[in-house]
């Protein structure tokens, strides 16, 4: 039993290092390993005693204590499952910019899996932090070695942001250790009522938000996602970071502190949703668009957890799981398109539904899920989040939850709008430049399988939301943290019945259509052009023009202009500020007048000059000194 928990951490690390040096067999090795790990992690569910302790720096209580609580077990299952799917997917050749670096990719994924298993299993706060920071370093290495163009700049930016965030988390954890007097993580339920706990809360939350990529720590995500290969973006950006960040945020808000409505977190969530979705609306590159949505969806999770209600907390966690599923499905579909057509640009692709029907359907399902269309899973978790927000309003009666509710719904609508554009321009419209399409066909089975699996799970988790995810996963997790989960819903939504109604509605529609089409014959006519010449032939409305008008209207025009100029990139602000202060300090203080050496030199010279001016070799001068001296001595003697 104990060996199993250790194996979950050590095995992927060893395999990762092995792959790195072996430089071949990476595909088979990682599929095989992740399959074993997946089975192991499922096996973990059926054991009672899940604690392992290994001594390390025991003088200060820093030991490896691995205790698999339910949340960790489920997170590990999800992580290993995704590694399995993505390894399966990554077997295809033209996914990577440089195929010679493929072994680096697989080895980093494996090492990362070991590290994040370590994060989920650690109950000791210090080892938790160590694994946590290692995950950031793996991210840095992945971007540095696998991204194309400017990889070093983006990698450094990522490391700076994650490093800053991790140092904040370090301080938060140290403060937690100080106040609780223990190094193990467990429900403390502190109140946010003293400056100390508020400071601690802020530093811990910065750690979580930075990982999950909410505002203002998001800026590395779009630029990295644009450049790295799709599987890297899928795994590291849309799966791992969300799993980790929400795990920590859950622990902070649900266990370390008492669950209470937190306006600050809710506002961060709201701003994240709105601003990222506005950015996503006008993107032309599918990967970049998806990465902005990855940021935007995080807002809902933060909103749910920040609402400080049980249903909101559950909704936040559930939304995280859903988001991981549909966002990876979208990323993988994007990868399929890219691997066939060679790019992920919205203007260059078009009309692919005919050639890649399965990819089209999976994209459509996950796009509907992310937009929150019932009965898919995204709708259900968003609905839970909204309920949490409403309930938080009834607790606090402040204006913030109402504002958040409106904003979040608006953001949801914008999400749908931006995915309409994606589906239209990639799959439905005819392309602007009609290249040879004969080579485009549906991708191979190993790529389709993960996509199909994920989109089917979108449907299942939505339709059977109460039965499968909530009762089996979310409620046990919450009750593990001593949170009561009875009657948390205030609204009523019966997904199974609704789905049945929706399906029967569609069925009815089809029947009516068929009946009517028997009676009337429809005929095709040419579009009436008022006698004008037909100039529209061959031109289509490109999907990228959909929301172009919003970028021309004030005040959005200014905002978009500033965003394009990286005005809202707080990273640039921070770095610029540090540079400015540094230059100022160097200019003001790192100069001779503040140098002790020069000060000393000046003083010595002044005194020496004065003394030497008294000794000019002038006889009269010396004589007068002698006389004055004699006078002083006599004065003292005669006293």
């Amino acid at each position, binding site marked *: 039993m104990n060996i199993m928990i250790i194996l979950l951490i050590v095995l992927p690390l060893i395999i990762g290092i092995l792959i790195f040096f072996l430089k071949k067999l990476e595909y088979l090795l990682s599929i095989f390993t992740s399959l074993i790990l997946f089975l192991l992690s499922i096996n973990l569910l059926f054991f009672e005693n899940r604690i392992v302790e290994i001594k390390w720096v025991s003088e200060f209580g820093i030991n490896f204590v691995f205790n698999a609580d339910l949340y960790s077990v489920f997170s590990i299952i999800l992580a290993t499952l995704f590694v399995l799917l993505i390894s399966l997917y990554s077997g295809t050749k033209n996914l990577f910019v440089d195929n010679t670096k493929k072994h680096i990719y697989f080895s980093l994924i494996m090492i990362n899996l070991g590290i994040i298993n370590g994060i989920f299993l650690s109950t000791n706060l210090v080892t938790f932090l160590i694994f946590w920071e290692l995950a950031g370093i793996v991210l840095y290495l992945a971007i540095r070695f696998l991204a194309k163009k400017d990889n070093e700049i983006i990698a450094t930016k990522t490391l700076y942001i994650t490093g800053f965030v991790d140092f904040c988390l370090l301080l938060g954890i140290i403060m937690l250790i100080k106040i609780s007097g223990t190094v193990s993580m467990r429900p403390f339920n502190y109140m946010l009522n003293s400056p100390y706990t508020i400071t601690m809360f802020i530093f811990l939350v910065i750690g979580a938000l930075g990982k999950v990529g909410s505002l203002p720590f998001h800026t590395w995500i779009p630029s990295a996602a644009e450049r790295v290969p799709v599987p890297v973006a899928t795994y590291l950006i849309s799966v791992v970071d969300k799993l980790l960040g929400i795990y920590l945020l859950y622990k902070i808000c649900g266990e370390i502190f008492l669950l209470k409505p937190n306006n600050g977190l809710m506002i961060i969530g709201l701003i994240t949703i709105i601003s990222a979705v506005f950015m996503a609306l006008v993107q032309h590159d599918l990967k970049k668009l998806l990465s902005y949505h990855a940021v935007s969806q995080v807002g809902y999770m933060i909103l749910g957890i920040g609402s400080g209600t049980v249903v909101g907390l559950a909704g936040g966690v559930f939304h995280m799981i859903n988001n991981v599923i549909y966002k990876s499905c979208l990323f993988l579909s994007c990868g399929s398109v890219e691997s066939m057509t060679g790019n992920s640009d919205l203007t260059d692709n078009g009309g692919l539904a005919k050639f890649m029907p399965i990819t089209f359907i999976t994209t459509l399902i996950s796009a509907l899920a992310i937009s929150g269309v019932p009965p898919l899973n995204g709708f259900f978790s968003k609905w839970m989040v909204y309920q949490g927000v409403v309930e938080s309003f009834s607790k606090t009666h402040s204006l913030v939850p109402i504002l958040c509710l409106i904003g979040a719904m608006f953001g949801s609508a914008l999400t749908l709008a931006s995915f309409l554009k994606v589906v239209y321009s990639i799959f439905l419209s005819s392309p602007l430049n009609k290249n040879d399409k004969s080579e485009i066909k549906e991708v191979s089975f190993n790529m389709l399988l993960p996509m199909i699996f994920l989109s089917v799970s979108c449907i299942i988790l939505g339709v059977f939301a109460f039965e499968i995810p909530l009762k089996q996963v979310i409620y046990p997790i919450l009750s593990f943290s001593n949170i009561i989960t009875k009657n948390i819903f205030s609204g009523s939504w019966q997904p199974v019945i609704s789905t049945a109604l929706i399906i029967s509605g569609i069925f009815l529609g089809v029947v009516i259509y068929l009946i009517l089409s028997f009676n009337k014959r429809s005929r095709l006519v040419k579009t009436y052009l008022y006698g004008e010449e037909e100039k529209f032939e061959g031109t289509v409305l490109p999907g990228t023009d959909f929301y172009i008008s919003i970028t021309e209207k004030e005040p959005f025009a200014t905002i978009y202009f500033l965003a394009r100029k990286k005005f809202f990139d707080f990273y640039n602000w921070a770095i610029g500020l540090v540079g400015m202060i540094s230059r100022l300090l160097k200019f003001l203080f790192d100069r001779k007048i503040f140098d*002790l*050496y020069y000060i000393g030199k000046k003083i010595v010279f002044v005194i020496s000059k004065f003394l030497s001016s008294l000794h000019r070799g002038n006889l009269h001068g010396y004589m007068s000194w002698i006389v004055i001296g004699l006078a002083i001595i006599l004065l003292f003697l005669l006293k």
Partner: protein
Amino acid sequence: MEVMDNNLVNIIIAVPILGSVLILLLKERDWNKILSSIFVFVSFVLVVVLYYNSFSNNFSFQKEHRTTYLFIDNYAIVMALVSSFISFLIILYSYSYMKSYDRQNEYYFYVTLFIGSMLGLIFSSDLILMYIFWEITSICSWKLISFYKKEQHIFAANKAFLITFLGSAMMLLGISILFADHRTFNLIDLKGRRISDLAMLLIFCGMISKSAQVPFHTWLPEAGVAPTPVTALLHAAVLVKIGVYTFGRIFVFTLLPSPVFQNFVMWLSLLTILFSGLVAYVEKDIKRILAYSTISQIGYIFLGFATNVYIGIIGSIFYIVSHGIAKAGLFLAAGVIEHNTHERDITKLGGLYHTMPITSIAFLLCAMSVIGFPLLSGFFAKFFVVSGIVASGKIFIAVGAILGAVITMLYLLRVYNKVFLGEKKFEVREETKIMLFVIILLGIISIILGIFPQTIINFLVKDSKLI
């Protein structure tokens, strides 16, 4: 056992100091370096023996050794271990770095004497003896910084010597006041006594002048003109560590400083950390950046000691170890770069990752260790120090220390990016094997200490006197 170990200490100090004279007398070039490394290696091995004796016996040395003027505790052993080990590696590095220069016997004479007097200072329990060794190191550093004998070098050496001398003169005054109050120079007798504020301040000035803290810091960046092994020696093993070592020895383990004084030290250290970190962010000369980095990192050590909390003190000692190793690695890697490209301006360097991969990896490892990333020794050092600050209840200073760590990350990675990444500007080969061996070894030791910090920490915790 006790007597034997005491004799061992005498031998540890005597071998390099007496041996250095022999080096000066020999004119044969090859013998100089070999003898020098042998003497330092002997000292290192004997310190290791001391370490094992101490680990296995759980000894207690301080049973009234007033006649010997030397004493041993685990703090001293750890410090001696690190100093002699790093010094030994630096001498190995000098084999090829200093090959083409004249006056080898002079160089190795001063280096060996330097290390010997450092070891003497570490083990001395008498303030006057400590002061004597202190001044010997000053003289050695003065001669070594000006080794190339150009005007700029002589200026830098004079500046270093005069500022540190100003500090040590103040310290001597402080020691005299201490003697006037307590009628003894012996640290064992002084244990647990109170000390007047003036004496404390004067002695502290001596320490910060040696450790190059604000406002006595200006000599250290200038001293970068010295040969690279010498700068590495100054920064990592010997010179600047003297100040923090004696701070720990006198103000933490011997005397009882007042809380006001501790507060003052903490704020001054924080100021040093932030100021020199920020200045390092805009400097262009790689050695100056590393020098400012040293100033900033030494601030953390003072900070940890000044908390007067157990975890902070242990953290500071561990910080000395980890910073010594990592900073030696950084300087020696910078030396490899300078040796091969003859360029120290980081804006003119670039793309060396492709031609010098080993140097690049070693540099990155050591930089990560200084920053405090986990699985490298710097993580625990920083973690313990910050824990100590939080435990002493000073949250503002803890936030400042974290900010300092972020700034450290900014400037060290800036150096790494500018030097090793980007477009390739130099067609050079990595040379020489012995230099590469030394820097990669230092990087690996950073990892080993990061994974097994308990080798040092358990050893320190075991000595009950260090509480």
